[in-house]
């Protein structure tokens, strides 16, 4: 069931050290990279169908193509390592076990989009991981892998800087991340009508997730066909899937797209811990509509299949919920998270998360009624599609799905 591309070196002792990384194939894509024209690299990535692994699943190659050509301004690559979505803990595996794969991916990407400086925005809490990443970058500079030249021979200047966040979930939203990188509060920006690249101090920039960038060297080395042979036609390749909650073997496992969710739970996740029965799974980080145990039986882990059953694949980080857990408790826990993390810019989100939090508190105290469930659904509808970023629609997705799929659980709290 496991297919290792990104996680190939994770189990090798000291895989984060340059010496070990070099002995195990890191930086082996660079010679081929520089034999290609930058546009050909982008074309290969587009042909591979590589999709962003940060949650949205947007195609990666077409995103690079948005970078303006022959623009006199410097271009930048910004790597999104703000990983803060509840249930998601995959990028940290790359920081910890194979930071040189990320650096290799950055070299490939920067060459393709003609960027000479890459910033890795890493969440503030990941101190250990940012230290490890900085050590790897230092090794790479000292060995001449990056800096004035690539691998001491290719005439391409590249700097990499790690930028530590300060503890704000919203900075995982790419435009909020750039605001933060520009030294401001993490407030998402209004989006343009047409498709265009991102802007870092008015310079063109591309923002990609850590795992997406770490998937690039394999595509450069083995071509698009080497990637599309895994996964499904529309969701090619592999992804680092994570599983947490009351299961025997919680953790991160790399699989091709297209495996059944129930198999992932039972085989790699080891099944539920003794005496627990499955009630539901939140599929890809907490912002995806919840699936009941019955729906889990049908779920297939690729973007299209998940959309077909009314949810999303998100980051692939699944949270498993057992029969003994109250879904009202789950909803309350998550709304507290979203209430705390709302950036406060848009009223429907800032107030909506707070209202739902208060209503759920009231229900948990036994003072709720059926009317309250309608109010929650009402508030959800005011949050959907009416804000600058997708934070509020994501809150609506998870809360509405819990209320609609488990209304009876809320009703057990009602006194009248």
């Amino acid at each position, binding site marked *: 069931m496991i297919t290792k591309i990104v996680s190939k070196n994770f189990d090798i002792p000291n895989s984060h050290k340059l010496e070990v990384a070099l002995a195990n194939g890191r930086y082996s894509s660079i010679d081929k990279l520089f034999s290609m024209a930058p546009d050909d690299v982008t074309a290969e990535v587009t042909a591979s169908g590589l999709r962003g692994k940060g949650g949205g699943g947007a195609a990666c190659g077409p995103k690079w193509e948005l970078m303006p050509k022959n623009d006199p301004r410097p271009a930048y690559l910004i790597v999104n390592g703000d990983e803060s979505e509840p*249930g998601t803990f995959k990028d940290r595996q790359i920081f910890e076990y194979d930071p040189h794969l990320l650096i290799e991916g950055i070299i490939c990407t920067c060459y393709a989009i003609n960027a000479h400086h890459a910033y890795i925005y890493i969440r503030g809490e990941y101190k250990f991981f940012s230290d490890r990443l900085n050590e790897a970058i230092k090794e790479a500079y000292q060995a001449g892998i990056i800096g004035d030249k690539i691998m001491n021979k290719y005439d391409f200047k590249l700097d990499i800087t790690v*930028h530590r966040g300060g503890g704000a979930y919203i900075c995982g939203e790419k435009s909020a991340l750039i605001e933060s990188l520009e030294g401001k509060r993490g407030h998402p920006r209004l989006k343009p009508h047409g498709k265009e690249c991102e802007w870092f101090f008015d310079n063109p920039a591309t923002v990609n997730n850590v795992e997406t960038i770490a998937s690039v060297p394999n595509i450069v080395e083995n071509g698009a066909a080497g990637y599309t042979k895994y996964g499904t036609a529309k969701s090619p390749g592999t992804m680092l899937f*994570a599983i947490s909650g009351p299961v025997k073997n919680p953790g991160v496992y790399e699989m091709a797209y297209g495996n059944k969710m129930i198999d992932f739970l039972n085989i790699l996740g080891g099944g539920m811990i003794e005496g627990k029965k499955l009630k539901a799974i939140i599929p890809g980080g907490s912002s995806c509509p919840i699936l009941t145990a019955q729906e889990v039986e049908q779920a297939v882990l690729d973007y299209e299949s998940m959309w077909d059953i009314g949810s999303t694949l998100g980051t692939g980080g699944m949270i498993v919920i057992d029969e003994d857990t109250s879904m009202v408790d789950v909803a309350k826990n998550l709304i507290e998270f979203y209430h705390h993390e709302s950036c406060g810019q848009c009223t429907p989100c800032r107030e909506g998360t707070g209202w739902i939090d208060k209503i759920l508190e009231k229900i948990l105290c036994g003072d709720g009624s059926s009317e309250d469930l309608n109010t929650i659904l009402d508030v959800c509808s005011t949050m959907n599609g009416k804000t600058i970023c997708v934070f509020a629609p994501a809150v609506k997705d998870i809360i509405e799905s819990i209320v609609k799929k488990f209304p009876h659980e809320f009703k057990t709290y009602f006194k009248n």
Partner: protein
Amino acid sequence: MSSFKFTPENEVKFQEYVSRYPLIDSVMLPALWLVQEQEAWVSPEAMVYVADKLGKTPIQVYEVATFYTMFNLKPIGKHHIELCKTLSCMLCGSRDIKKYIKESIGIEPGQTSEDGLFHLSEVECLGACGGAPMFALDGVYHEKLTTQKVDELIKECKK
């Protein structure tokens, strides 16, 4: 004039950060981190100092420092326990860990122990869901916590 000043080592680090970005504005978070590493919290004086270094107004620094939850806006205990409370940790027993910390150190989230040794914060998802329940102790992750493990860590801090 502000009473806060970077140590010579941190001044070097600050200048290194300045050289890494197209505009000095980006050095806001790195500078606040340097402040917190130096003093364990970010005082109003330090914010004025950072504003001065970055060519910003103090309010511009204040709005950033208060937006990001990791900056301590007042002094806290010597050891900072950040207990994850989000879903995977809750499902795996973070509430029991919270209760145990209350019993053994006598503090609830937001409080500092009387001896000033510990400060407990309840925080949102730390990205360690596979190791739930967990907390970060002085920034270091401790996963798959049991009461016994918590005991050992507390003892270690008291040494």
